[in-house]
Structure formats: C-alpha cells, structure tokens
C-alpha cells in the first residue's frame, strides 16, 4: 500500500470515528468503546476491500459484511452514510422513537446492513450461511464477519467455527475484535478466552494476528486471506483497544458512555488532531 492510500484509509477511519461520536453525542449516549475499536477494520473494508454499490445495495456482485457484535451498528452506519448508502441526515435519528436507524444492526431498516444482529453469537452463523450459499451458487463474493472477543463466550460461535471449517468456507473472513473488554469489565477477569489464534488454529482455520488499528496490517491480512484458497476459513485476530481514538475512554469502562457537550468537543478535537500528515 502506498502512503497516499494509507493516509486515505486512516482519514476514512477518523471520519467514521467522528460520525460515531456525532451519532451518540447528539443522542446523549451509546455503545462507544466497541464501535471505536472496529473503526479501522470497517474503514479498510468499505474504503478498499469490499465490492458494493450504494445505489444497488442488494447487488449479486457485492461482498457481504455481517457485524455480529450488533451494538457496533453506529460504526457501520457511519461508513454506509459516508459512502452514500443513505443521506447523512439519517445519522441524526439514531435510536429516536420511530427511527430507521436503531443502534443494533438492522437489515430491514438500514440500506447496506446485511444482517440484523444484537443477540450475540448469531450473526456469525448467518454469515456462515451466506458464505455457504454463495459458494454453492458459484458466487465469487467474499463474506466478512466481525465478532467481539466477549461475544465469543457464546457457544454458538464455536458451533459455527466447526461448521465453517467442515464446509470449507474459504470465502469467509472473520475478524475478532480482540479489545479485551466486555460490559462488566476486562474479559480476562470475567471469562478468559485464552489464546484466540491457538483456538482457531486447532479448529483448522487459516489464522493471522495483527494490530487492528493498523490499516496496512488489516489490508495485508485480508489480501493474504483472499489468496489462500485451501478450503480453510480465515480468521484475523485484531488486537484492538476498546474506545480507541479518543483519550477519555478506559477499556474496562467505556462499553456504554454518556456524553456531555464538553466531552463531545474534546473527542472531536482529538480526532481532528490525530489526522495523518503526508
């Protein structure tokens, strides 16, 4: 990746983070930490890797992203709005009564959202079904899925991990948002998930472990996964920081955050200051 492309993707990730803060602060609160931690992954997907057409969100040609950690809806909504799937003004309506933008990913209300998620563990199974159907139907698309590390305490995740390998879903790329924290605190203190890479390796998956805030590493890992057509599904374990990008967040206490105008202003200032320079 050349430096211009890198800067473009880093800026897109900052745009996404700003829109996340915008949606939540105008509402007053939101699931900030787990939205900020996946912003770089989402930036690389919508900024570089995925095929899609905002004017035809159901196109057969498209790639698919399922965000199984459904509370990260605002992060996807930011990317979708920035890419023109719906007017930016819709971001003003997050979680208002009667909205078409419920904060948990909702495929029936939000153009570009592929799966309704929010009950953890479920989106990944749906992504496996989408990958399997695509493969059986000869559709060359890639199906991407993002799960949380806390989410992978759900048993259904591991049913799907077994299933994906058995069905040889090498068109499936799974990101683990390994931000080491969940609602009640640090994952290691609640139900430690141990070594993700070892676990997926033992299940027969093609594995990679990267810095989930490094757009170059994310793109490189995706390209490596796409190039590996050996019948193994791909997992990219992304070391991330819950609440990444702004300074006030603490990983073990930023799952859900209440905003004040001062805090919002501080976040926006910090994000602008973090923009890369050529």
């Amino acid at each position, binding site marked *: 990746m050349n430096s211009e492309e890198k800067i473009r993707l880093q800026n897109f990730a900052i745009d996404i983070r700003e829109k996340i803060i915008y949606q939540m602060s105008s509402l007053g609160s939101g699931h900030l930490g787990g939205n900020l931690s996946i912003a770089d992954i989402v930036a690389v997907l919508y900024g570089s890797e995925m095929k899609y057409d905002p004017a035809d969100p159901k196109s057969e040609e498209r790639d698919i992203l399922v965000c199984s950690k459904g509370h990260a809806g605002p992060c996807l909504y930011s990317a979708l709005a920035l890419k023109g799937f719906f007017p930016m003004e819709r971001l003003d309506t997050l979680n208002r009564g009667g909205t078409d933008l419920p904060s948990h990913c909702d495929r029936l209300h939000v153009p570009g959202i592929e*799966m309704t998620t929010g*009950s953890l563990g*479920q989106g990944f*199974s749906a992504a*496996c079904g989408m990958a*399997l*159907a695509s493969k059986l139907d000869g*559709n060359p698309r890639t199906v991407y899925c993002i799960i949380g590390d806390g989410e992978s305490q759900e048993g*259904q995740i591991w*049913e799907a991990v077994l299933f994906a390998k058995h069905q040889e879903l090498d068109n499936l790329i799974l990101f683990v948002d390994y931000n080491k924290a969940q609602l009640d605190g640090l994952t290691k203190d609640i139900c430690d998930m141990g070594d993700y890479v070892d676990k997926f390796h033992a299940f027969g998956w093609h594995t990679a472990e990267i810095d989930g805030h490094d757009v170059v590493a994310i793109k490189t890992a995706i390209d490596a996964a796409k190039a590996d057509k050996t019948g193994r599904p791909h997992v990219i374990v992304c070391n991330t920081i819950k609440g990444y990008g702004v300074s006030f967040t603490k990983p073990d206490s930023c799952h859900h955050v209440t905003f004040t105008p001062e805090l919002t202003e501080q976040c926006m200032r910090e994000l602008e200051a973090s923009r890369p320079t050529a």
Partner: protein
Amino acid sequence: MSYKILENKTTADVTMTSVYVKCLKALMAENPAITQIESDLGNSLLGGAAIKEIKAEFPKQFVDCGIQEANMIGVACGMSLTGRIPFAHSFAAFVSRRATDQAFISGAYAGSNVRIVGTDPGVSAQLNGGTHMPFEDVAIFRAFPNMTVIEPSDPVMLEDLMGKLAANYGMYYLRLFRKNALKIYEEGSTFEIGKANLLREGKDLTIITAGAVMMPEVLKAADDLAAEGIETRILDMFTIKPIDADAILAAAAVTGAIVTAENHNVINGLGSAVTDVLMTKGDRFVPVEMIGVQDKFGQVGPLAYLKEAYHLTAADIVEAAKKAVARKH
C-alpha cells in the same frame, strides 16, 4: 382452496415423512434454491436412502450441520438472505426450545425466509420421552411476530402445503408427525394457509383441532357424540397462527359451545389461540373446554398409553363436549 373429505377414512399407506421426501425432491428438481438443512436428524425425517438420493441428485441443496440447532437456524437464515429457500429440521423439542432466540432474532425479527420443520410433536415423541416431548413448541413460535405456525393433519394436506411453503416468503413453523396418519382428505385437495377446514357439520358444539395425532380421536368422538344425539361441527385448524378468527366466531355463533383438542400444553397452544379470539372478538359467552396436556412434562410410552395418560382420547373429548354443551345458556 378446494378440499373434499373422504367418506371412508383409513390410515394412509404412506408415512408423513415419505410424503415430505417426495415433495422435497420434486421441489428441489424444480428450484435449485430449495435447500434441506439438518442437524443430525436427517435419518429420522428423510431416511438414509433418501439422503443418499438427494445428495447424489441435488448435492448443492442438502446441508447437514451436525448437532448444533442454534447454528443450523442461523445458517438457514443466512442462506435465505442470499437467495436460498431453506427447510431446516430437527425434532420439534430441539428446534423450538434450543433455537428459540435464533429463530426469533435471526429469523423472524431479521425478516428471513426459513421453514423450520419440527418433527415428533407432543406425545408422538413416544419412547424418546420427556426430554424429546414438546408440549410448548406452538406456544413459543405463536408468540413470534411474522411467524406462521402450521400443523398438517394428513398426507394429502402435507403434499399441498409443501408447495405453498416453498413458494411463499417468510418464517414458517411446520409441526410434523412422522408416521402414517389417518387420511381424511381426497387426493388432490388444496388448502389455504390461514383458513380452517370444515370437516363435519353439526349444530350442538364445535370441536377445533389440529394435527394428525388428535384427528382420529376427534373424529371418533364426533361419531360417539352423534350416537348420543349430540351433533358436532369439526374445524381442522391446521394453521394455528394466523388463526382463522372468522371460522371460530361463526362456529361459536351457530353451535354455542366449543371444545379444543390439541397435542400440546393447553397453555398458549391452540386452545388459548381460540379463546383469545372468542374473548376479544366474540359478542356472547361461549363455553370452551380444552383437551390437551394439562401443564405437565412429557414421559416415555407408546402413543396409545400417552394419549390415555394425558387425557387426549376420544372418550376424553366426548366428556369435554358434554360439559361444554351443559354449560351453554
């Protein structure tokens, strides 16, 4: 909708599962999107020989997930959202209780397009006993918005409904008895989802039932009641949701007394669905007696024993009918 009732009703020479297999294969041949998804109970529903044939003829239309009902429903929903038309099967007990939230969120709430097939409803789980005996599956799925709940009563009906299930979009629960059912409809009969069938006309009370397990008991009860001068209307309410409120209200108006007969807990099954209609839409008091499992767990035993044990027999229905008639004003 064009159905005819057989004069002589005898046990069908085909099992419900063989009809399912025949229809499934025909639908698969017609439409490559039709997909059977199993969670290691394919042998129970389809049989080993049929699985081999399906795998050979339609290798891209059969998926066995292994023993993982939750993942199976999620996979089925995902496949449906990329164009497949899945039939996802497990025993009724597992596909309802073990995968409730998957069917609810990934299925109904997400607007997916899956036919959930639950076999061995109620006491028909027989020797598998209480762990496998669902008396609450209808209650579970009936509470989901956007969910249609269907319990076919005979093989002729199943054959017609399979085509309709394949053609329609949405979430369906097909509550399916696996064995030889009493054949009550003429071959070639057609049915309308959401419309009850009138099986017998009578002026003194109405029995409302669903499914192949209760049907022979209901029909015998009506004969026995007729012998005592009580004329019974019978409604085959094979669509438990959305329920045919007009048929219930008309039956209430004409016959003035109702017995519901279901192979399920009386709590939140067919009986509850019927009384919901009568209490909220009816214009008069109509006595209702509910035949069904009286809030008990399942147990092991052959079908005849279990029908006795849970008071699901023709004699129980006759007794309930007399009570209902006696309560009429």
